[in-house]
């Protein structure tokens, strides 16, 4: 009975065409992205509930800088995806490595610089404690996703360098790049929510 079931499964797997498999992969990734959207959406709701039309004093130049770095990284990620779909291996590898570098630069900007210079801390006491808690939770959760994206892209770069991907087999690259763009989309909402929306209150730099 078990042998028959396994044979039937194997037969069924053979029947799935590459186009159908790609469709199912994309559908699965987008369902994952939708579930992540609920997570980040909830965090944004918490920001508006707790901060309202106010925000802490943050370094505006740093906020704009890391945002532009992340946007440029998305451009290179897109370039890497296009390159592999057209068998341009050299551009693919170069672009994916630049994306990883920019992702690390973003992490240095947020975790290494913003966290150190922010006028609020996650454990501070007093009337402004809510600013520290929300700021570090939002940036921390996002930075964690950037870190996982960097690791994912590094795996893709390593596999790509070994000739694992080409114009017929590119799902690994496409999936990792779409995840990277999603992390970018989240920051497109987080940046104004943290740095621009409302009136700046509390301790300054």
């Amino acid at each position, binding site marked *: 009975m078990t042998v028959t079931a396994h044979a039937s499964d194997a037969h069924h797997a053979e029947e799935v065409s590459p186009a159908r498999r*790609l469709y199912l992969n994309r*559908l699965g990734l987008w369902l994952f992205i939708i579930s992540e959207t609920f997570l980040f959406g909830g965090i944004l709701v918490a920001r508006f509930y707790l901060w309202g*039309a106010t925000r802490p004093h943050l370094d505006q130049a740093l906020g704009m800088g890391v945002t532009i770095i992340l*946007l440029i990284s*998305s451009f290179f990620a897109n370039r890497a995806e296009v390159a592999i779909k*057209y068998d341009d291996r050299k551009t693919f590898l170069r672009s994916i490595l630049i994306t990883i570098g920019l992702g690390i630069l973003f992490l240095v900007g947020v975790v290494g610089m913003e966290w150190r210079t922010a006028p609020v801390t996650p454990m501070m006491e007093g009337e402004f404690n809510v600013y520290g808690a929300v700021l570090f939770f939002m940036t921390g959760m996002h930075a964690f996703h950037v870190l996982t994206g960097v690791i994912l892209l590094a795996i893709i770069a390593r596999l790509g360098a070994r000739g694992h991907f080409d114009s017929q087999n590119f799902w690994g690259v496409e999936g990792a790049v779409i995840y990277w763009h999603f992390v970018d989309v989240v920051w497109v909402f987080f940046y104004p929510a943290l740095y*621009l929306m409302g009136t700046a209150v509390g301790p300054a730099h």
Partner: protein
Amino acid sequence: MEATTSPEGRAAEKNFLYRRGLIVLIALIVLEVFDYFMAQWSNGSITILAVLALINAALIVQYYMHVTTIFSMEGDH
């Protein structure tokens, strides 16, 4: 863009997609800078900045994440 199989056609397609990616990047950076100045001008209006963030996100989702190709079952963009 219609998929072609000739080397010239594929090269043209690839260049078109590279160029489109660059145009989207420029639009995104311009919108982010505009975001900053709108925040100063409107005193951090949540509504205005939320609309601008939605436009930014729509550009990324459409042109970088190819949301419309999910159901196309095609290999290309």
